[in-house]
Each structure stands twice: as C-alpha cells, then as structure tokens.
C-alpha cells in the first residue's frame, strides 16, 4: 500500500464520519480541489483500498463516494449479529396454545375466559413464533379476530393434521359439588 497523503487522510475521515455516500462536489469543496482533480484522487483511492490489506473499500455510487466493508469479509461481519436463540415455550404459552389447538378457530375473549387472565402478550408471542395465526373474524358483535394453529405448529409437534392432537380425557375431572358448611 502506498503512502496516503493528507488529502486522502481527510477523505477517509469525511467518508467514515458520514457513513452515507458523500457527493463528489462536497468532497472537492472540503479538500479544496476542483472536481476533476478530486475525481482523480478518489479513483486512485478506490484502487488503493482495493489492493491494500484493508477491511474496508471505497466505492462510487452515482458520483458520490462511500466507504463500506469488503464483501468477501461478509461472513465475519455477519457474526456481529446478535444471536437470538429460540427458547422453549413458557407454561403460559403452552396453555394458550393448547386452548387454541383444541378449540380453533377461537377468539381472544374465549381464551381469556378459560385462562382467567389477559392473554394479549402470550398471543403475540405465539404469532411471532408462527405457531398460531389470525384466520378471520368471528361473526359476533365487535367482530373479534379468530385464531388457529399454523402449519408450523403441525410441523413442530410432528402432527400430520389436527386429528393427531392427543384426545382429551376429561372424565377424570372430578365434580366438586360438596356441601359447604356455613362458618
């Protein structure tokens, strides 16, 4: 890599600070050269960046100039991304999902009636995870949204279709109607 002269130092600082493409005119104005000379300097600089052991390159876009990372280094840059791990379902999510699965299509009000708690957040989570989706609106006042499970739901649970849902054994549920003594 050849020596970078002062003009090139200034240009690097400008383009770095800007992030966005900087028009040729603006660069020329700041380094105090005419546009033609500036263009020569910049073309020379593009070549230098390309051939030097640099992680960044200079590119021209529509008579404006911008620094960016070299595309061949993309695999490294991608590793900066935050790794988001999918976590298992929370008990709340499982409960809500089971109500949707066994009663679909179902409204939020129905889910909340059974669960006895507000289920906005947990529904949003399940939608985000693509386990349930909106499938229309109920034909009752207020036209509430209806939710049903997705294909992804079937895939994740290993079902071929909804008939594969394990049958409910509701007979086990005891009838509690004992007399309650007063005081």
């Amino acid at each position, binding site marked *: 890599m050849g020596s970078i002269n002062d003009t090139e130092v200034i240009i690097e600082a400008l383009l770095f600070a800007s992030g966005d493409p900087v028009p040729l005119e603006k660069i020329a104005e700041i380094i105090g050269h005419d546009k033609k000379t500036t263009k020569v300097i910049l073309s020379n600089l593009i070549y230098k960046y390309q051939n030097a052991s640099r992680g960044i390159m200079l590119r021209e876009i529509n008579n404006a100039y911008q620094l960016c990372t070299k595309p061949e280094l993309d695999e490294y*840059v991608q590793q900066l991304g935050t790794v988001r791990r*999918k976590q298992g379902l929370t*008990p709340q999510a499982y*409960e809500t999902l089971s109500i949707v699965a066994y009663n679909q299509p179902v409204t939020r009000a129905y889910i909340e009636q059974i669960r006895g708690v507000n289920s906005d957040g947990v529904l949003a989570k399940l939608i985000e995870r693509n386990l349930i989706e909106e499938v229309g609106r109920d034909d009752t006042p207020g036209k509430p949204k209806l939710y049903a499970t997705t294909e992804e739901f079937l895939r994740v*649970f290993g079902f071929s279709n909804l008939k*594969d849902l394990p049958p409910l054994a509701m007979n086990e549920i005891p009838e509690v*109607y004992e007399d309650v003594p007063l005081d």
Partner: protein
Amino acid sequence: MKSALTDACTLKLENFEGPFDLLFYLIEKNQIDIYDIPILEITEQYLDYLSAMQELDLDIASEFLVMAATLLHIKSRMLLPKREPLVEEESVDPREELIMKLLEYKKYKECSKLLAAREENWRGAHYKLPEVIPDIIAQEELEVSPETLRICMENALRKYRDKMNDVSKKMKRILNQEKVSLRSKVKEILGLLKNGVKLCFSKIYNSKEKSRLEVATGFLATLEVVRLGQALIYQNVDFGEIYLTPNNKNNNNNKDPMSLIEDE
C-alpha cells in the same frame, strides 16, 4: 449605588458555582497564600461581592450566605485576644477547617479544567452509525411434546371448571341461608310449641350445634312468635335460660299464625 466593583463583577457573579468558587477567585485575584488567608481582607471582599449581588437583584444561594457567616465567625475568633490555651487542642487555627475544604475543592477545580481540555480535544472524534446486521436466529427446534399440549388443555379446563364450581358453591351458601330465614324459624318454633311442652331456647338453638346465623335468627323468631301471641316467654335470671310455653289464651287461635308474618 453603582460602584466600580459592581460593574467589574456583573459578568463574573453568575459564574460562581458556589462559595468556594468565589473564595478561590478572590484568593487568586489577590495572589493570596491559601495556607495563610488574610481573613479580614477576604471576608470584606467576599461580603462586597454579596452586596454587589444584592444590588443587582441576583438571587443569592443560601450556601453563599452560610459561607459569609462562617467567614465572620472565623474573623471574630481571630480578633479575640489570644488566651493562653488551657489544653493543646484549643490552639487550632480557626481557619483550618476552611483551608482544608478549600484545598479539597481546589483539587477537583483543577481537574475539571483538565477534563474540559480533554473533552474539547475529543469532541473532534466522530463515530460511525452501525451498519444493519441482521440477527442470527439460532436454528434450534422448539422442544415441544403433544402430551404437554393435552395436559395443558386438561389443566386449563379443570381450573375453569373449578372456578365454575366456586360459583355453584356460592349458590349453595345462598340456599343454605335461605333455610335459616326468619320465616322458616318461626314455623319451626310453632311446630315445636304444638306439642304443648316448655321449650328451652338453648336446647333448640344450641350454639354449639347451630351456626351463629341460625341461633340469631332463632332468637328473632322466638320474639316474633311471642309478638304474634303464640307463646309466652320468661327468663329467671339475667343471661339465664329462656323458656317458651304455648300461649293458650291467645285470641288468634283460629288463624294460621304463619299468615300473620309478612313475607320477607
């Protein structure tokens, strides 16, 4: 009175961050040795500044006034004729505490100039906005089991039914309460009186066997039966046993006493 001093410090005044800052300004202006502050002179100048501030109608922070008091106090102690100290400790210079505070303050005052210079220099460094780098979604499968789904559904339904059952329990309570209505108790007592025997209140409404509500209602019913002329009531001693006998002399014998009780 607009003095030269007032003019001189018009701009300066508001810049004093606190009494220490003002004192420092005076010390530096007069090229005073901080370890040997001429307290008379400094106090005078300090008070001059405060009165200049008053002239200018500036709000004087209470801290400035506290310092003025401190200075005057030190001044008075300096002016007192020196007595032979009884104990060694008493010979402490009255200025000592103030000097220590000023020295401590000075350290940071000087440091703050340094920080200001550093900031001025580094303000010229510019940073770049981050590129958009997509999140890496770990390709992990959700750990799920169909059985859990079933169990969750059953648990949810069970909880829901229990809640519903709670409601029916409440209904039962209400029904039970209905049983101890005044009307039913009156009927009960009248039934017992028909046998013509003397009734002990504590036997019919034993508080150990009956609920409080039942005993209370029973008592009210007893009074009601007496009011209706169906029974006579007597008690031998205060808080003693209450006895009930059929009233054979009542005039309404032909009527059904129940018809006399208003519906609740």
